[in-house]
């Protein structure tokens, strides 16, 4: 991906969407994302009024419940700067879901506009040629999260960013394009199926012999590491932003 419509490198200012999952379970991910961007020379704004993109309600078929929460995001991220998200899934929600969520409402133009300037973190870095400026020894394996891969169509950016980390080896796992089984409400609605898919993913990741599992989505990582821990599969994991922040 060389150019994302609506994003211009001039000025190099950006909003950071922390994501609700990081806020609640792993604040280090959002902090790391901010650090990585700053180190790359980006002026980062982290709006204090942000909460969640609204995806949890949207994806289980409750658009009326999702809309007020998403509207808050529209207000919090109003402005010309790109919105950078350390989550392929939240970025996909805004880019792909917002135009439909707000269709026919007064907020539709703003939703479409925000969708156009919202990008996932590694996409932002890769499309602007930002160097990670990170050094890390050892090896990692990368998990293609579904919304990143199939809704954003993004396979290359995270790999390009990882390739820019000095001294790091990427070991691809088997069946990397197959879902880890998280799936939001699916993980608790059909936990046995979700758990089995997570276990398969954890085994594939561990089988690479890489030092740790890296992904651009915290949700998948919580699920995969949690299932690995429960089933005794040794697996370390971090978000891409955390790896880059060092």
């Amino acid at each position, binding site marked *: 991906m060389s150019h994302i419509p609506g994003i211009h490198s001039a000025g190099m200012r950006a909003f950071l969407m922390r994501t609700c999952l990081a806020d609640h379970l792993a604040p280090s991910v959002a902090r790391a994302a901010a650090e990585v961007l700053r180190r790359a020379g980006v002026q980062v704004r982290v709006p204090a009024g942000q909460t969640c993109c609204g995806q949890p309600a949207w994806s*289980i078929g409750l658009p009326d419940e999702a809309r007020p929460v998403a509207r808050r995001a529209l207000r919090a991220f109003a402005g010309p700067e790109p919105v950078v998200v350390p989550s392929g899934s939240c970025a996909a929600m805004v880019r792909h879901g917002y135009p439909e969520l707000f269709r026919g409402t007064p907020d539709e133009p703003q939703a479409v506009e925000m969708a156009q300037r919202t990008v996932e973190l590694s996409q932002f870095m890769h499309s602007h040629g930002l160097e990670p400026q990170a050094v890390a020894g050892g090896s990692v394996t990368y998990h293609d999260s579904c919304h990143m891969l199939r809704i954003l169509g993004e396979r290359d950016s995270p790999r390009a960013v990882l390739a820019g980390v000095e001294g790091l080896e990427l070991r691809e796992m088997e069946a990397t394009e197959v879902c880890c089984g998280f799936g939001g409400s699916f993980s608790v609605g059909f*936990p046995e199926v979700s758990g089995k898919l997570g276990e398969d993913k954890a085994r594939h990741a561990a089988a690479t012999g890489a030092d740790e599992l890296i992904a651009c989505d915290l949700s998948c990582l919580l699920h995969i590491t949690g299932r690995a821990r429960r089933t005794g599969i040794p697996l370390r994991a971090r978000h891409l932003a955390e790896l880059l922040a060092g």
Partner: protein
Amino acid sequence: MSADRPVSYPDVAGTLRQRTREAVADAELVGNLRASADAWAAGRTRMEEQHAFAAMRERARQIRTDAVGRLPELLRRLESEVRAAGGHVYFAADGAAACAYVVEVALARGARLVAKSKSMATEEIKLNEALEEAGLRVVETDLGEWILQLAGQHPSHIIAPAVHLNRGQVADLFAAESGRPVPREREALVAHARGRLREVFASADIGVSGVNLAVAETGTLCVVENEGNCRLVTALPPVHVAVMGMERIVAGWDEAAHLLEVLPMAAIGDDAATYVNLITGPRRAGEQDGPEELHLVILDGGRSALRGTEFEEVLNCIRCGACLYSCPVWRSVGGQAYASPYSGPIGAVLTPLLEGPTSPSAELPFLSSLCGSCDDACPVGIPLHDLLVRARARVRPPQRRRERAAFRVWSHLWRGRVGYWASRVAARVGLRLLGRRGWVHRLPGPGAAWTSQRDLPSRWPPT
């Protein structure tokens, strides 16, 4: 709970969650499913290497979209062409009307034995049961469907209905049916079925088939297959009854030729099916074979109500089964857990839409991780991911009432800073209280389902 138009199988026990739990724990089933999905994926990769699949898919999407847009006009043309060729046409508003018509045809002929080839539409309307209730003997002649008939089971896949069974299980069923031991080699099993079913082709009074595609301009029905049973069922008995979903139509032969190429590529990873039977009316003067009577039953069954809605694209489906094989959930539980003839992503969208608002299948759209691999697999570009999300919004299963109530509270809390802040504090405090050496092993309330399968890191990154 009853549906306006039952599509789900009424005899399936347990809740959806229970069925998925049992299926995922069945190692033999999961192994059978995985082998079949791997074989499909290898074929699909081959097709993408040998053909310009992306371009073919876009053209297929346009053809289907155009046909669904012109549906009333195309159906009128089809009806007049089939009649002109000497066939009968019956428009059935629902499954009950379709079954009643076929039963009437059978009784009028004094029929006793019905030979069937595989048809999803007849599974949808439960035609076998209707014919059996009227005193007829019905024999499925597609190998997979016959195996299931012997097993007393429902199909698990649109194209490969018995894919959840292995050769040993099949041999046991054949031995029970014929009363003699049957070797377990695949070739011997196929030869055994060939021998047993030939008597059925020879003596059937009526042949019942589905329709993969109807071509309006000539009134031709396309029936696609690999085994040869569809040809025998449509050529030998004195009456042929074809049952088609009303959307399975294209205007002309250019469009039909393209879809007939795309269908086997998507369904079986081959660039042609073995047989495509193109039927234009019954036997004509001077011909020695072919049915004396041809009846085309065109089934609405809730389809026309989907036109012009946000679900219209489900009508583009050509029933290839690719989205099933591509789906990690289907590969984990198989089709039978869905309790509908239509399983996998397309079934999870289509079944509740056909059944109507009070359907027992209202939970099906939730049986998906929304991973989107079905979008990639679909040869006519149906946006299944988005349709699953929309279907969740349209059908409101009673099982999820509490979840909806919880999300109303969530929506109020997270639309403001204070509520969101309180929620974060609660999470931080909760994790600290419940965490043991960095992990939570048991969450209370709605979180219990999470920790039934996984631990939760109370510190991130986990150690």
